[in-house]
């Protein structure tokens, strides 16, 4: 079963066993465990000044004026930069942040200005930048700035935005930026022939990614050559350099974006934010090196938020439980601006709602709405966490309405190897390089679901549901998912033979804390047939390669790894060519063994000796317009206390087939970590805004993350049954799967526990108070 991916390489590591597939302990840990990492705030440069941002305290207003004279009078203050200053230096208008993904033309009027010029659209938007000798002085100066704002009514929810009563952007007729629509087959016919149609209305709360390291930028001014080096870049440094240089009106070659250690991304950290322009702008303005580090409140206000959406959906079933179609509408609250990747969640919702199921007819619209809240972007499993819950809840409720076991309905509809490749619904509009079309690569989703049920002992646990002697109610739930990965267009790698005979590997992928140096080091060592210790790896920064694409959409292992395999082949050919000259044989006769080249007659030269004669440098690349689809399933066993609304997670199992696990230790870590992160979104986390657009969750004591006591029992199993046929490694992008499925499986388990109350959880978070209210409401309905 399954097709085996082409072998990574004929030669393997020095001890004869390949590194790929082994739980190699991480290279990164040696520095991170000893406090030797280099995160943005660890960068300290000579003569460095410090910046602090004056942020709007109201959500919607017209800016009438800023008086900074008292701030400028404070000793140690170098500058107070306002929107007027930025506009003056940038040809009359404040530059605006570009869209990195789905740069649709219709988004033009909605793009975010780098600093407020005339209108404030969310609490936390930057009104002025103070630069001073120390952060303390800069923060003192913030309080001396007089801002004259004419407060406007806030548009605090998508319904008021959609009414159009108050337009947020001049020159537009609507706050509805765009509508994505995904279609497949004949939905009207499918629904007309249905034996049962299940309808539900869902709502999902606003969440914050909360990387443990807040954002930060150090812009180093190099007077010699008038260059700017930006430290603290992450995720997509090459795009960010292009964006920043273009906003500054300079050539990209005048800038470098350097990647250090990154304290988490989850889709949000490392995207281009206004401070990534404002700090380099201030550095050029003053001719000085400037550091800005976000504090936690700023971070909660301004790092891309995500997930807030509502959906009205229906699923059509045949009498035997075959799902005939899905249709409906979703509304996504993107906050004030679309951000660099903010359209991904709204465009993923209609296309991926069908998940791992064979659903032939789809017609779903998804509206993008702008409001006076923090701008949204992607957050681990964008649009996928949401739709897994929508789809699985519809399936479960539809099955029950038909008198069928939801497990049987899943079995009937899950895609199998015979269905591959399965074309998802086409989604439009779509901006290049995305075509709006995508299909699965390989797998048998049903087979893995069966395995998950068996490992979880599903049948035996079914009998243990319902009321227990302690007054709590037990329930079990299951759900299935797919995970997209490996976004194109391409990735690049370079391999060099350094003067000392060591191998220097450079890759355009970036590290966001996922263990990139280890997993890509394993791939490189196998591809080159050398020990991992013979390779020095560099990655991400713009001064290393001509072009790189970074880490998003679970792409770095597949794309960066495949580029490395390509470069390694060329590097070995170049090594054979070079060695042949000195070993006096033909290149194809040269045998590469570890870090040595040998001739058929037994002569040998080490890489170090070869390097003394000539250096080698080769470039590799991997282009890809297809996505990988890892897939899996999960089961949960919960105990719910109807007296308090508290949910205890008694057991949880998530399984995923990732095609090929480069490092099982790392893949497992992603699966478990992603599950707990998603669990926070199910039970705890909610960014709360009031009717005036004020953010009420401004600390980590208000925005609750999971802690070590919350979810102790989570198990994960990784499979490699169906390698991806579309890349030389066989790997599928992974790392989001745990997050995708957790909402779906938890609502199903909680609903099963509370079945006798008739509770149907369709909105998150299921915090104890919310769940208690739902139970009470259901009870009074029953009475």
């Amino acid at each position: 079963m399954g097709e085996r991916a082409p072998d990574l390489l004929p030669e393997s590591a020095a001890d004869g066993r390949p590194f790929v597939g082994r739980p190699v302990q991480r290279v990164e840990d040696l520095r991170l465990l000893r406090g030797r990492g280099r995160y943005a705030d660890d960068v300290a440069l000579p003569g460095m000044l410090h910046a602090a941002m004056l942020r709007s305290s109201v959500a919607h207003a017209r800016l009438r004026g800023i008086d900074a004279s008292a701030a400028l009078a404070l000793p140690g203050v170098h500058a107070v930069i306002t929107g007027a200053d930025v506009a003056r230096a940038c040809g009359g208008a404040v530059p605006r942040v570009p869209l990195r993904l789905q740069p649709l033309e219709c988004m033009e009027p909605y793009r975010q200005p780098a600093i407020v010029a005339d209108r404030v659209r969310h609490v936390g938007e930057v009104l002025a930048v103070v630069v001073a000798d120390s952060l303390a002085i800069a923060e003192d100066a913030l309080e001396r700035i007089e801002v004259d704002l004419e407060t406007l009514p806030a548009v605090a929810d998508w319904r008021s935005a959609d009414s159009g009563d108050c337009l947020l952007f001049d020159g537009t007729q609507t706050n509805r930026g765009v509508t994505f629509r995904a279609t497949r087959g004949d939905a009207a016919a499918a629904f007309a022939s249905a034996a049962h149609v299940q309808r539900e209305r869902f709502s999902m709360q606003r969440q914050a990614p909360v990387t443990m390291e807040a954002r930060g930028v150090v812009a180093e001014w190099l007077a010699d050559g008038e260059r700017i080096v930006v430290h603290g870049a992450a995720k997509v440094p090459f795009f960010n350099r292009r964006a920043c240089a273009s906003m500054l009106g300079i050539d990209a070659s005048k800038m470098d974006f350097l990647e250090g250690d990154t304290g988490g991304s989850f889709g949000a950290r490392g995207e281009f934010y206004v401070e990534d322009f404002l700090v380099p702008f201030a550095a050029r303005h003053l001719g000085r090196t400037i550091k800005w580090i976000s504090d936690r409140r700023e971070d909660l206000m301004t790092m891309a938020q995500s997930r807030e959406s509502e959906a009205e959906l229906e699923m059509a079933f045949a009498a035997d439980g075959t799902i005939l179609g899905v249709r409906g509408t979703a509304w996504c609250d993107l906050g004030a601006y679309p951000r660099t990747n903010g359209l991904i969640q709204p465009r993923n919702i209609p296309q991926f709602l069908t998940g791992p199921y064979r659903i032939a007819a789809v017609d779903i619209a998804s509206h993008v709405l702008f409001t006076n809240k923090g701008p949204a972007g992607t957050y681990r499993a964008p649009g996928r966490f949401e739709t897994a819950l929508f789809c699985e809840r519809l399936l479960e409720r539809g099955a029950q309405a038909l008198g069928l076991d939801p497990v049987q309905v899943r079995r009937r509809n899950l895609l199998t190897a015979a269905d591959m490749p399965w074309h998802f619904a086409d989604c439009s509009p779509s901006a290049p390089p995305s075509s709006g079309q995508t299909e699965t690569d390989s797998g048998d989703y049903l087979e893995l679901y069966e395995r998950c049920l068996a490992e979880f002992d599903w049948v035996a646990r079914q009998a243990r549901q319902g009321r227990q002697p302690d007054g709590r109610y037990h329930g079990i739930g299951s759900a299935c998912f797919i995970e997209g990965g490996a976004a194109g267009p391409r990735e690049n790698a370079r391999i060099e033979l350094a003067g000392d005979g060591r191998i220097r590997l450079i890759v355009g992928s970036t590290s966001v804390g996922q263990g990139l140096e280890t997993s890509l080091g394993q791939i490189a060592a196998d591809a080159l047939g050398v020990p991992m210790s013979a390779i020095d790896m560099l990655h991400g920064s713009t001064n290393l390669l001509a072009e790189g694409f970074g880490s998003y959409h679970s792409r770095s292992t597949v794309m960066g790894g495949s580029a490395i395999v390509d470069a390694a082949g060329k590097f070995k050919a170049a090594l054979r060519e070079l060695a042949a000259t000195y070993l006096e044989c033909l290149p194809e006769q040269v045998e590469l063994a570890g870090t040595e080249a040998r001739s058929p007659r037994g002569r040998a030269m080490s890489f170090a000796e070869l390097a003394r004669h000539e250096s080698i440098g080769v470039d590799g690349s991997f282009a890809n317009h297809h996505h990988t689809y890892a897939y899996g399933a999960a089961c949960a066993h919960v105990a719910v206390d109807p007296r308090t609304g508290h949910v205890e997670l008694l057991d949880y199992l998530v399984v995923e087939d990732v095609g090929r696990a480069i490092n099982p230790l790392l893949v497992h870590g992603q699966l478990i970590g992603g599950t707990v992160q998603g669990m926070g979104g199910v039970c705890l986390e909610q960014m709360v805004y009031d009717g005036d657009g004020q953010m009420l969750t401004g600390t980590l004591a208000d925005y609750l993350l999971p802690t070590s006591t919350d979810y102790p029992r989570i198990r994960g199993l990784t499979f490699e049954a169906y390698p991806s046929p579309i890349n030389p490694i066989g790997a599928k992008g992974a790392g989001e799967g745990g997050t995708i499925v957790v909402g779906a499986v938890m609502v199903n388990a909680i609903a099963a526990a509370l079945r006798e109350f008739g509770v149907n959880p369709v909105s998150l978070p299921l915090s104890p108070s919310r769940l208690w209210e739902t139970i009470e409401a259901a009870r009074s309905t029953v009475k």
Partner: protein
Amino acid sequence: MKVRFTVNDKPVSAEVEPRTTLSLCLRDHLRLTGTHVGCEHGVCGACTVIIDGEAVRSCLTLAVQVEGRSITTVEGLAHGEDLSPLQASFRRHNALQCGFCTPGMLTTAHALLTEEPHADEARVREVLSGNLCRCTGYIPIVHAVLDARVAYGGPAWTGEAHAHHGDGEQR
């Protein structure tokens, strides 16, 4: 004003303002950047250091408060170039991903195991609940701490380490 104290067995002094936090003093004045600042309001625990044996939030401690005290930071947990047993256990269990919360996790766990080498899983979870991690889901961190107890004179850990691979071979 001048403050004198000991960091990782070395006497140090720094010129600070009364409002300078210990975290800022360690990071900016003494360039010990292993101590990370994650929230500046005492919730996340990333900045935890050990002051005379006690795990303390350095973002909520003023530099002037540690006059004459002895401080251990993440940089002082290992001697020489080897990882300490606790650090090695973190690596073995993949108990870190981005590494930002790790210094606080290590100092908190080191302070706990030094006092209570027999701490059980519930106790370890309780003590670590003051430290936020967004990457690992805590499970490998708890396992790493339990597995390191033996180096502090506590019991050996008998839990299963890496039962996470569905099948040994590709099919």
